[in-house]
């Protein structure tokens, strides 16, 4: 009986919109029932702007169907729009995905002509990439060896990704949707350099490794990886 009286849904108005706290100890059905009730009570009038809602679930985890249900209740028909749904818990699977996306994968081999090495996350290759070989990563690529083939960093579209190599003489560098290729004349290659996207020039540039310390400060922080994950 006590539970009945306890507020399952708490609303807080902020300048960004509305924050909804849903109690995480009751059943989902109860919460949804009460939520429906509340939303109908407090829906904005026709002439008022649509309100953004942040939903905080606490330690409750929602399935996809439940999220769908939630969206229907806080839906457009009630003149609300969901800005975000936040939960303190993640599924093991998602956590693993985060982990693989943020990990640096160390691989010790030579990527020879015709071979493709594809990793999720950052790639640390101890060995060469020979002409005709290709390395692909969703994150950054670090090569302790000679890069003579193709390297593609940030393949899922991360333009902040970069490629660093002890010896750089690639046939192509690709970062997200950018591609640059080696000049037609014979080039000697360079030592300890990196390739990254220069937003101003709108192309890939190759520069000394030292420039990374101010151009890509984020690599030193763990959060970058979580955010990207």
């Amino acid at each position, binding site marked *: 009986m006590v539970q009945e009286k306890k507020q399952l849904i708490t609303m807080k108005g902020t300048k960004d919109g509305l924050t909804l706290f849903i109690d995480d100890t009751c059943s989902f059905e109860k919460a949804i029932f009460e939520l429906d009730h509340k939303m109908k009570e407090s829906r904005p009038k026709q002439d008022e702007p649509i309100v953004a809602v942040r939903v905080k679930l606490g330690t409750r985890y929602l399935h996809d169907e439940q999220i769908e249900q939630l969206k229907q209740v806080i839906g457009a028909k009630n003149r609300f729009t969901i800005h975000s749904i936040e939960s303190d818990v993640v599924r093991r699977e998602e956590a693993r995905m985060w982990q693989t996306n943020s990990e640096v994968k160390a691989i010790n081999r*030579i990527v*020879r002509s015709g071979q493709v090495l594809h990793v999720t996350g950052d790639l640390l290759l101890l060995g060469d990439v020979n*002409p005709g070989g290709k390395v692909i990563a969703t994150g950054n690529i670090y090569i302790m060896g000679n890069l003579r083939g193709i390297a593609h960093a940030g393949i899922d579209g991360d333009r902040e990704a970069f490629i660093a190599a002890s010896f750089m003489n690639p046939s192509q560098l690709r970062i997200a949707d950018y591609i640059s290729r080696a000049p037609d004349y014979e080039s000697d290659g360079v030592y300890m350099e990196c390739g990254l996207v220069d937003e101003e020039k709108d192309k890939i540039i190759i520069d000394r490794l030292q420039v990374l310390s101010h151009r890509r400060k984020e690599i030193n922080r763990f959060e970058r990886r979580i955010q990207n994950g």
Partner: protein
Amino acid sequence: MGEAIVITSGKGGVGKTTTTANIGTALALMDKKVCLIDTDIGLRNLDVVMGLENRIIYDIVDVIEERCKLKQALIKDKRFDYLSVLPAAQTSDKSAVTTEGMKKIIAELKQEYDYIIIDCPAGIEQGFQNAIVGADKAIVVTTPEKSSVRDADRIIGLLEKEEMAEPPRLVINRIRNHMMKSGDMLEIDEVVQVLSIDLVGIVIDDDEVIKASNKGEPVAFQPTTKASIAYRNIARRILGETVPLQSLDTEKGMMQKVKKFFGMRA
């Protein structure tokens, strides 16, 4: 129990067949029992290089399809008994050979011979698979040209996936000293660095090689030509001897370079 070594390159025309014939000859000259197998079905020419073309009665496809016994198909070399050749078929295509058939033949030959040298066809298709399936070791032949180094790299990649007893070793063939010096050809160092496998020998581009192969007499029979010595050195290294790399020219300064290569292999 013998050892099967496949000679391969990926690219055509770099000297697989010549290398096979000469390494085989050189090993046989050192009193090893050697059998050469030509796996280039439809384009056989190991028998021509060995000068044994006229003696072919049965070939490898006949053996696999059990039209004859393995012993009947083997051709003994006309010069000495220690060397035999199993010729490829000229009329069938590469699908006539199966990997199981090859494995069986090589296993049988291993009982009898010390070394089985397999001449691999160009390319990376079924013919290549057939050639490498029964091999314990591999020797990759390349020339100091970009295209053949690129193909050698691809082949090494494929060979590394096979579970062989040893990583493949490298022969650099057709070296032209004056071009290498002038920088118009890739240097040996460069080739070895890119392919990063052990070098088992270098062979200079010698007119004698072409002359000898036209005569059907592998150059390794000649005791004095540079190419012949190079092939004999490769054979000695296969036997486990430590032999310094041949100097490319006669100048004294080259000795240092030789020592450098030697040190790299050790």
